[in-house]
């Protein structure tokens, strides 16, 4: 664990891999150090944002170093089922890039549970990982200007669902009608860190 400076109000904790991020994040959510107003996990880091009136950066750094990561985190969260029509524009091509065919890619994508590791890019966009997903999908050479909401996509070791129309460079393999981010619902974001996801094949359109 490396604790890196991030200005006068925040600390960035750098870890060796995504699992360590999940473990530390789970522990910090359960037992948030005093004076910490936000905890933001990412691929290799956890950002702790403090209220400078309520604590000091050295006290928060000390609290983080004393935190025992929660190794039992994966598999403990709420389960969300995402019904997918696997007819994405990039399905055939990305299957080819990953040395399989479309049917095999769908089989693998639906084979095991995914877990939301962290969010980013846009509100409610979850970066999902799966223990058994061994594929590494390259991003598109040129991002799309408009990716439709509900698009189910791959990039690197991650899968994700676009919450709304936005630009995007991920490979589109399918779509869902499930609104993963809905301001009229509480919570608005379905895919929060720690939530488990199972993709279900609705059949090709």
């Amino acid at each position: 664990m490396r604790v890196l400076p991030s200005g006068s109000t925040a600390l960035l904790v750098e870890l060796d891999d995504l699992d360590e991020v999940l473990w530390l994040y789970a522990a910090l959510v359960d037992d948030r150090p005093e004076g910490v107003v936000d905890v933001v996990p990412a691929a290799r880091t956890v950002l702790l944002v403090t209220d400078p009136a309520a604590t000091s950066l050295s006290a928060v750094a000390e609290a983080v170093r004393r935190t025992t990561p929660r190794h039992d985190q994966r598999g403990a969260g709420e389960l969300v089922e995402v019904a997918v029509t696997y007819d994405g524009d990039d399905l055939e091509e990305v299957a080819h890039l990953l040395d399989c065919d479309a049917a095999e890619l769908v089989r693998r994508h639906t084979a095991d549970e995914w877990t939301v590791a962290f969010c980013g890019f846009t509100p409610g966009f979850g970066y999902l990982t799966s223990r058994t997903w061994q594929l590494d999908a390259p991003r598109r050479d040129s991002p799309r200007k408009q990716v439709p909401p509900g698009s189910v996509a791959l990039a690197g070791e991650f899968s994700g669902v676009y919450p709304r129309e936005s630009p995007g460079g991920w490979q589109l393999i399918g779509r869902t009608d499930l609104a993963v981010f809905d301001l009229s619902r509480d919570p608005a974001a379905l895919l929060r860190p720690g939530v488990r996801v199972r993709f279900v094949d609705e059949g090709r359109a």
Partner: protein
Amino acid sequence: MTRSVTVLETGALTTLQDAGRPGQGALGIGRSGACDRASYRLANRLVGSPPDAAVLEVTFGGLALRADHDVLVVTTGARCEGQVPHNAPTPLRSGAELRLGAPASGLRTYVAVRGGFAVEPVLGSRSTDVLAGLGPAAVTTDDVLAVGEPASPVPGIDLAPVPDPEEGDVTLRVLPGPRRDWFTGDAWASLVTQSYTVTTDSNRVGVRLDGEPLERARTDELPSEGLVRGALQIPPSGKPVLFLADHPVTGGYPVIAYVVDDDVDRCAQLRPGQSLLLRESAL
């Protein structure tokens, strides 16, 4: 009866802002809120509104309002030309107009009304986040903005003696960021000695600076990581982006330094063309 004001003109950009949406970064939701937090807090204090009441954030003046009922208003931040109640709470009678000219210095003016603007909060805040597209839409001509009920007495301050935003060169204190070691020693020296120019490519998300590009010591890709306002991120151009209120929750380019939080509000008042000096500080 709900009191209100009607928007006659908006200027370049007027948005509703409050203290923002803290604590939701893990959902990909940024803090947002007023860019110049000190001026925002002062505005609410002067009219006796709660510290998290919604105000108008006006970019480079140009806002015109008509009171539909008697209200108490104040402006803070960038002082605009015209008959303006700057840092001095002033009654605006029903039918009277408040017209902001261009500011003499600074960029953002805050208009608070006693009781606050009573728009519907989104995810706990009435702030417009221009990057995420969350919160109320930007204010447009003919909008009728409801005014809330005052909850506490007017503090009885006639005039708050606060300095106007700076003209000319602005000096900000900076601290090393998490990825200072991704840059050469010369790059750091360049960052804290050169004179940057604020570009027109600046908004509530961030201020783009023009200057000598900074050279990286390592060129591998950085996995995206969380950041807060005041971050000085260095994209491939080598020229810093200074992030403000609507910064992305995470960023994929290295953050070489941070502006000290106490100096970040002044960043919100930087105008295109203004010179900026960054000076190394200590925590």
